[in-house]
């Protein structure tokens, strides 16, 4: 048992952090809700209770997976680029603009729209990447600022050039059907983008752990001086990690537009980029674990929405809970004492076990 704990210590730590988050939310519900039973049920079982809600849960996870990957790659390179939100927004705007103003057969249209969105996002990742690599400008602040720039420029483009005036509110023209991603499970909005996101997770895993560039990215993140002395072109690595991140985030935004709404309809920045930070940290920047952490967050998110609808508790409780979970996971000393005690006990047990033979 103790060996098991030591081996999977990191995962167990994450699990305990999540458990604490859940316990806190249960406490909050009991304190505030007038009908705690119904509230608890809608939060924790809600997403499973009907087909459309389950669909909601899966479809919500998809952009979060994309953004988690988009954040994890620069994080692995030691770059605090948190610009996934901006890349996703501006990518989806430009992709939509391209989609509504061109017409071609679907087998060309879908990949081209995705590519245009992705390249826009890649450019959005390139700016902080280049500034950091060349002049050591803080990529954190630059990517934050660019999120706001992306938001306002995106709104301008939609509002003044691609706005569907027939609709009563600020949305773009509808994409032609050739640029739609199919919703393939009747009764839900689960679309092909979900599968693309899983594909990207596998690709990114392969890229990070089984290619030279991936190795260079991880090494630069681990110790940049070591990487430099080892002959890795750190300049290139810093830029590429952020360019790929921007590319993936934008694809995530675009698949959401093509698969769910079929037109650009975000008046507020959707916040997936910040969710990406959350799932990347919970998943320890590992693409396969990011799938799991995204599903977890999407489940809570949908549960939170149902909770908001059916009871007296605002869905922002989920934001509070996720911030607590991140704090606990990122706190290295959290449970470190426990690990230390087990390690010592294990070592002592070994000594005792070895004594008779010596």
């Amino acid at each position, binding site marked *: 048992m103790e060996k098991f704990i030591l081996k999977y210590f990191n995962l167990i730590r994450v699990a305990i952090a999540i458990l604490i988050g859940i316990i806190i939310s249960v406490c909050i519900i009991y304190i505030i809700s007038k009908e705690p039973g119904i509230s608890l049920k809608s939060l924790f079982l809600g997403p499973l209770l009907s087909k459309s809600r389950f669909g909601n849960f899966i479809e919500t996870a998809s952009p979060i997976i994309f953004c988690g990957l988009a954040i994890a790659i620069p994080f692995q390179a030691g770059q605090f680029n948190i610009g996934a939100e901006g890349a996703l927004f501006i990518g989806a705007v430009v992709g939509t603009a391209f989609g509504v103003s061109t017409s071609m057969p679907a087998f060309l249209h879908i990949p081209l729209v995705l590519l245009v969105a992705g390249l826009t996002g890649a450019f959005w990742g390139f700016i902080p990447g280049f500034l950091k690599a060349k002049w050591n400008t*803080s990529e954190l602040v*630059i990517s934050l*600022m660019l999120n*706001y720039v992306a938001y306002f420029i995106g709104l301008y483009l939609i509002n003044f050039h691609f706005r569907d005036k027939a609709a009563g509110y600020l949305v773009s023209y509808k994409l032609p059907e050739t640029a739609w991603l199919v919703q393939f499970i009747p009764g839900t909005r689960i679309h092909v983008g979900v599968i693309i996101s899983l594909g990207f997770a596998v690709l990114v895993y392969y890229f990070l752990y089984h290619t030279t560039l991936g190795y260079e990215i991880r090494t630069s993140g681990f110790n940049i001086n070591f990487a430099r002395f080892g002959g890795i072109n750190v300049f290139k690595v810093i830029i590429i990690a952020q360019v790929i991140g921007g590319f993936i985030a934008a694809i995530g935004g675009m698949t959401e537009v093509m698969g769910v709404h079929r037109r650009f309809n975000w008046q507020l920045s959707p916040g997936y980029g*910040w969710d990406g930070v959350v799932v990347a940290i919970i998943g320890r920047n590992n693409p396969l674990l990011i799938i799991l952490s995204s599903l977890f967050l999407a489940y809570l998110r949908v549960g939170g929405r149902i909770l908001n609808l059916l009871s007296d508790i*605002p869905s*922002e*409780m989920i934001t509070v809970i996720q911030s*607590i979970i991140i*704090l606990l996971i990122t706190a290295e000393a959290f449970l470190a004492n426990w690990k230390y005690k087990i390690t010592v006990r294990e070592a002592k047990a070994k000594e005792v076990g070895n004594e008779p033979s010596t």
Partner: protein
Amino acid sequence: MNPLLKSILSPQFVFAIIRVTTPLLFAAIGVAISVLSGSINIGLEGIMLISAFFGVIISAFTGSLVLALIGGILVGIGMGALLGYFHLKLKADIIIAAIALNMFASGITIFFLYIFTHDKGTSSSVKSLIFPSLQIPIIKEIPILGEIISGHNVLTYFALVSVALFYYLIYKTSLGLRIRAVGQNPDAAESVGVNINKIKLYSLLLSGFFGSLGGLYLSMGYVSWFSRDMTAGRGFIAIAAAALGGNFPLGTFLGALFFGIVNAIAIYIAPLEIPSEFIHSLPYFVTVVALAVYSIRLSRRKKILSKKEEI
């Protein structure tokens, strides 16, 4: 004369600059103090937000401005303490911990806003008090200058005093000396018996203190209500402002003033035929350019210095 030029040259415009600079200045001082001790606090966004919220709520429910001030400041310092606890004691990465705290602040303020007012947007259904404006006698009578300098919110004057306080703290007190020592060379500081963690904690608490004043000004001076995520990135712009000023007191002031001017221009050219989206993106765009230019100059200077050393 061009009407735009006329309005920009008016005393009201300078007055507006001072008004929009106030929250940035408080936050920038908060960031600068934390950077000087070597642990950057990017949680000012959350600190301002949570203080802005509790100031409004406390004043609405108790009717006391003093309690609102004390409460708002304590919450802000509490956020600084929380960040310090997680970073210094539990060894969390300070950037990720601060991101989490920003998220926490955004969530918890909307959560309680809904609990207290059954509204998720603004607190307009409860009546918040505001901090008074000060008319300065004599100066008030001077034409132009009086219009610019007199009649500001009391917190605005305190923001200006804070620059002096910041200077005094950093250069004239032993705590300031220790903060700088810990920031520049923690090992050397430790070797002469300075408790690094304690000093860093103090600087984070101070950071929370100044941030909380910025938040209180936003919701109880700049406007008289709380609205969700009302800080709108000011805590992040403050990081850029402090960085532009090299995190020194006067530089931080000038950095904040620079962004104040950009913001005020954005407000003043709003009636023109320029799409408002462009104007709103201006301060953020300028931050990117300014920060890039600043770091280019910094890296050139470093190159020259290292060349000199080689010679």
